[in-house]
């Protein structure tokens, strides 16, 4: 296998076409010999230059420079792994670019996962003359997670958790590793949510999923506040106050509902205060964004916790692009896991949040399973 992939022609791409975002990982070889360099066709060079010399592509494509993994050894080659994303609705522009740069002349296999690999298969063929090698998204996700956690990298640790999740002043991010992680509950929060129970590298099952995910947060925020991007929505949320929107236990009982062990600060009814006209008129867009974030996050926490109980699993790993630059949600999830399980459950997070599927697709290219 190793030998085989050693001769695998560049470029090496892995792609994950989700409902909202396309995630692309690109391996940039840094150990190209002079001989290789000579043999390299112009197209390939131009693609490499284009991708590595820019951090933004077109209007919406972005390279997450802070996630770049340098000096990585992949299939015996040394190089850097780049992480690029753009909205799924801009896929036509991407295909146009592929066509302009004559990508198809490179005769490379493009490994793609995510629903879009199926949905856009014919577009790839028609518009860019590219054949996709379609891969299952959950297989890729798990493969990507396990790989990135294991690679030796000079950068910060891939896996981390929050210490003192119950105490906002002392809640800090702490590195850790996924040693002996099984069984593991893997919660992937993209547009929607998938929850997987992973028992070993190649033994997993999808436990359940929910349609209340990142897409719901953004979709509702757009409707409620008129914002249009995830960053905008998060920014608003960070400045709002959800307790003006939600009805808390103490709003109903004046304090804790002791008979059932419910603390006064717990949300009794998400958006419950919005049943009243006066209160609807008194809340800000920021409050609404915050309440939406809290509602979606807590709900994911709640379903996750029930799955962990049903599957008898104590380690929960949260991934997916909903968590990108979203410390609010991560801390909420960390807290919810800890509080409602009385410390039994531990929430873990990974730095490369939403890129695991794409990484898994790349690995499939190099080491077909």
């Amino acid at each position: 296998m190793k030998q085989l992939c050693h001769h695998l022609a560049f470029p090496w791409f892995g792609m994950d076409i989700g409902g909202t975002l396309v995630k692309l990982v690109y391996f940039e070889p840094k150990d190209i010999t002079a001989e290789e360099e000579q043999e390299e066709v112009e197209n390939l060079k131009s693609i490499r230059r284009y991708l590595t010399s820019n951090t933004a592509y077109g209007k919406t494509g972005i390279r997450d420079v802070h996630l770049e993994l340098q000096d990585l050894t992949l299939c015996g080659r040394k190089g850097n792994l780049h992480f690029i994303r753009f909205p799924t609705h801009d896929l036509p522009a991407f295909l146009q670019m592929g066509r302009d740069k004559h990508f198809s002349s490179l005769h490379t296999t493009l490994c793609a996962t995510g629903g879009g690999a199926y949905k856009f298969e014919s577009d790839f063929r028609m518009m860019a003359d590219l054949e996709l090698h379609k891969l299952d998204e959950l297989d890729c996700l798990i493969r990507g997670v396990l790989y990135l956690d294991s690679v030796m990298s000079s950068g910060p640790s891939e896996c981390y958790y929050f210490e003192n999740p119950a105490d906002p002043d002392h809640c800090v991010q702490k590195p850790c590793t996924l040693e002996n992680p099984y069984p593991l509950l893997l919660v992937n929060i993209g547009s929607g949510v998938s929850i997987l129970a992973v028992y070993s590298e190649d033994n997993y099952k999808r436990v359940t999923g929910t349609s209340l995910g990142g897409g719901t947060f953004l979709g509702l925020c757009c409707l409620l506040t008129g914002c249009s991007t995830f960053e905008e929505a998060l920014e608003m949320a960070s400045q709002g106050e959800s307790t003006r929107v939600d009805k808390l236990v103490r709003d109903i009982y004046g304090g804790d509902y002791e008979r059932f062990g419910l603390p006064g600060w717990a949300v009794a009814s998400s958006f419950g205060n919005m049943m009243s006209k006066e209160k609807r008129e008194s809340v800000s867009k920021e409050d609404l964004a915050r309440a939406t974030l809290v509602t979606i996050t807590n709900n994911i926490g709640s379903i996750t916790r029930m799955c962990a109980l049903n599957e008898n699993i104590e380690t929960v790993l949260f991934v997916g692009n909903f968590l990108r630059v979203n410390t609010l949600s991560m801390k909420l999830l960390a807290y919810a896991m800890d509080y409602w399980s009385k410390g039994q459950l531990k929430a873990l997070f990974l730095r490369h949040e939403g890129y695991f599927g794409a990484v898994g697709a790349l690995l499939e290219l190099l080491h077909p399973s």
Partner: protein
Amino acid sequence: MAECGRVDSNTSHTMDKSITLPPDEIFRNLENAKRFAIDIGGSLTKLAYYSTVQHKVAKVRSFDHTAKYSDISPPYLYEISMQEEVTARLHFIKFENAYIETCLDFIKDHLVNTETKVIKATGGGAHKFKELIERKLGLKVDKEDEMTCLIKGCNFVLRNIPHEAFVYAKHADSEFRFQTTNPDIFPYLLVNIGSGVSIVKVESEDKFERIGGSSIGGGTFWGLGALLTKTKRFDELLQLASKGQHASVDMLVKDIYGGSYGYLGLTGDLIASSFGKSATADKEFSKEDMAKSLLHMISNDIGQLACLYAKLHNLSRVYFGGFFIRGHPVTMHTITYSINFFTKGEVQALFLRHEGYLGAIGAFLKGAEEDNPNQYSWGENYAGSSGLMSVSPDMNPMQRARSGTFDMLEMDRLERQLVNLPLLQDPSSYIPDTVDLTEDAPAREYWLYCFEEALDGVVKRAVASQPDMPEAALRAEKFRQKYRHKLQTLRQQPFAYGSLTVRSLLDTREHCLNEFNFPDPYSKIKQRENDIALKYYQKAVKSLDELSWEEKQFALVRGVLAGNVFDWGAKAVSEPAFMPLGGQTDFCIFFFIPLSERPWLVDSYDQWLERLKGPPHKCALFFVDNSGVDIILGVMPFVRELLSRGTEVVLASNSGPALNDVTNGELQILTERIAAMDPVIEAGLREDRLLLVQSGSSSPCLDLRLVVLVCDSTSLLFPSRLDKVLAMVVRERQTDLVIIEGMGRAIHTNYYAMLSCESLKMAVIKNSWLADRLGGKLFSVVFKYEVPVGKPNKDCGAFSPC
């Protein structure tokens, strides 16, 4: 993570308060109200009270027959008198909060007899209205925990109301599929969807635990929905949702995959991300579509959590309630869908007919603990209860709110506690009714028509039964209106009182008759028929005794069947062509009854005869039907033969009157008279081998799950020895044969009842429509002798379902 709080009452819309109340129709019997409870929710108030109801009952009393029968005898065998009886009734009334003050005023004005100083209160609004209630009624408001009340109420309705729980199926012929009452109600999961969601595990009467919940509930639908659509009312939001297309707002699996996600078996139409398509600033979405998407999002989420909790606690019965559900087909449908999806059909979402009353019932029960209401059985009074209202989503929300403005439930205390007949093979799967009219539209139409047609006759008979009461005609007219209205309601909403059956139609009629003080319209007819039939008893027995053994066995069966034709309740028999027969009952006519020839429609007579050649039965339990010729010339000779064979006989007759069915009171007098003429019967009574017991029923049909436990049959001859418990009697005497006679008990009900001992079902089909349907003719005979599987003499009677 959340809890069950109620809706802010300030969010409820203001209703027109000037609507004139017909209060005496609503707060019935208030002057005899004893104890109150109130449950004030976000928009609806539920009032509960307990009252004592005086109503007339027909009693029979034997004349003094110490003189020998053949000598000077009074004109009748027994006299009928009307007596006042006091029974207990529970009243529950539901109305918009807007009426609360008007209602309290009315109650105050009519409250005369109450001894209570306290009113139990629950619900989120109890606090808000505390001062008002105390001021208006002069009663001290005593608050009870909401959840405790809810669970208490839930246990109560599940235990006492048949067909309380149902499964909702939007696209089925009948949207409501009622569950058969399972006496074993625990454990279950109650998912209460108020503004938030509470998930409660109930393990026994006193043991329940809130095992979880969610903050995404009815308040989220309402609050978020109001923000998104600028629509203020909950009902209107549901209305919007029912017209929307969620696929324009939600991101479906097919939007991501282009089709289904085959690898995981997720279909293309599955929602991958709720509101996933609205993440854009440059597109408008319709209110309807957003409301629909929101409804799906919330229903699916609640369903999913409920399933996760049910799985974790290994529970399969999951009931849903709370204002989010309360009679709304839209939410019942989405919750049902969600549960079905997440459990792959293994768990069914269950809903309750009286869900809105649970809190009020529970609060009432809390206050009535010293009266021990749970030791009694209670029955839904069809005459005084509104039934499940029409919940068509097409109905204008205002109209809905109005039509549901005053909703009522009344429950009568049954004088005895009812239990299962111990001889049922499998009580949990026993369904008394042969045909569910809710699901069988042609049968439903026929029977509703039939009962409406018969109404004039019933009214006439009711008036005739009370010749000394001039206002009887007026009352009878009121009865006619009430029952006709019930029939009309049932035509529109066959599900109003649970599964519609011939039995429930008959019971509703009895309840309406009682409501207007016609406890026994057939009393005079029964009296006359009994008198006439008695005169022929000895002659009948004598002629039977002259027959050979085999001829006699056939004549006895034929006698029971022929006797059963004499039935004033049956349509064909009361038709003009048949009147001369019924009218001038004569012994010789008895033999010319137009019974069909063998082989009968269902005919296992040969097997029965074979069985008779074998050893006698230990004890036979005989559920009898009509008075007059039926009981005296048909049943009694049959009983006599059983006794002669050495079989003990327990005769079970109705506790209260229904049509011309013989009641226990009447049967005791009749048996006593027969004993005076017949040494076999006399010896049977004396030696305690012939026992008269009450069936616990006042219906022409028979529900074997509700057989009286405490049998207070006070026999005139041997009172102390007969005072036994039917269920115990059946066990003690090792009953090995159950005989069920007549259309009501053996065909409309119990036709398919599986018993753990031998059974004999005998009836003559006195209704041409039914006969037609069964593939026979009018007066076709059903003679169904069955031996339970595993015992010799396999089942022989077979005919296709009615």
